[in-house]
């Protein structure tokens, strides 16, 4: 193997160090393998193309094709967080993965947005149930002359005296129930969506 210019060596080293850094969510061993694999790729491709021009230019071309270390790492990190998150039932991994997915592709963005809103809805229902005993006057299902005025948490200025609250303390079990069912359905759908991302999965992931 021909000895490379130190400027070229430094550029490669810099890229690999940065790549290892942005792969941080992954276990050490996997990070090392990913870095080693792409190091081999860069060096081998460089050795092949050296005749085509200046060493530094050739290298810059190769690195350009890979994209910035952050971009190159993003697919690995999203895959890891989502699949490990599901395996370990880790909410924080799933949400980090979902967030990354949302940032990297349009489809991912829609999914991330959808699940975020859906979880927010389920939490809101639980919140309404919990708030009823604390603010009995402000929480409820409000009707005025037979038509719906509002469901949830309101300030006293929202309604006039003709408005009635009809659920009473039943709102606690009802909204807790809806909130929890909504939460479970959202989680089930999220799990299915993530599994579909890995279309060939047959058995649990083993490392």
């Amino acid at each position, binding site marked *: 193997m021909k000895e490379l210019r130190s400027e070229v060596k430094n550029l490669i080293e810099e890229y690999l160090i940065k790549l290892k850094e942005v792969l941080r969510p992954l276990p050490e061993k996997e990070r090392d393998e*990913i870095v080693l694999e792409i190091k*081999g790729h860069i060096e081998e491709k460089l050795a092949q193309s050296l005749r085509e021009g200046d060493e530094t230019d050739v290298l810059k071309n190769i690195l350009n094709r890979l994209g910035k270390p952050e971009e190159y790492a993003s697919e690995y990190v999203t895959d890891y967080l989502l*699949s490990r998150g599901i395996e370990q039932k880790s909410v924080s991994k799933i949400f980090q993965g979902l967030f990354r997915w949302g940032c990297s592709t349009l489809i991912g963005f829609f999914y991330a947005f959808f699940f975020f809103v859906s979880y927010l809805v389920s939490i809101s229902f639980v919140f309404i149930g919990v708030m009823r005993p604390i603010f009995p006057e402000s929480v409820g299902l409000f009707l005025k002359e037979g038509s719906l005025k509002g469901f949830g948490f309101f300030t006293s200025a929202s309604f006039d005296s003709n408005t009635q609250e009809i659920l009473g303390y039943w709102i606690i079990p009802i909204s807790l129930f809806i909130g929890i069912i909504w939460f479970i359905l959202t989680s089930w759908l999220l799990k299915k969506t993530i599994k579909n991302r890995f279309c*060939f999965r047959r058995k649990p*992931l083993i490392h």
Partner: protein
Amino acid sequence: MELSKWIAQTRKGTLELGILVLVRNKRRYGLEILEILEKDSGLVVTEGTLYPLMNRLKREGLVISEWVESESGHPRKYYALSKEGKKLVEQMIEYWGKFSKTLSKLIEEGR
């Protein structure tokens, strides 16, 4: 539908098959797979797609990998089908055969 969109979709849907077929009878490393795909097929793929995809196929238990030192001194990560991958790829090939036959027939009849 725009042609370029359709082409992108089709490529995306068949890339896995292309890769699995490449490592079906012979272990290969990433750059080798990239070069073959670039040269011999319409399945042009970038490094940023291929390497993470190989990692995912490995995660899913379809390929196995091993590190081998090349003559030029670069350690290379070689991929080959796992037992499970072999089973799946045979099924995929069978399906692909039927699928493309049906489609060709439809095209012929539609002339």
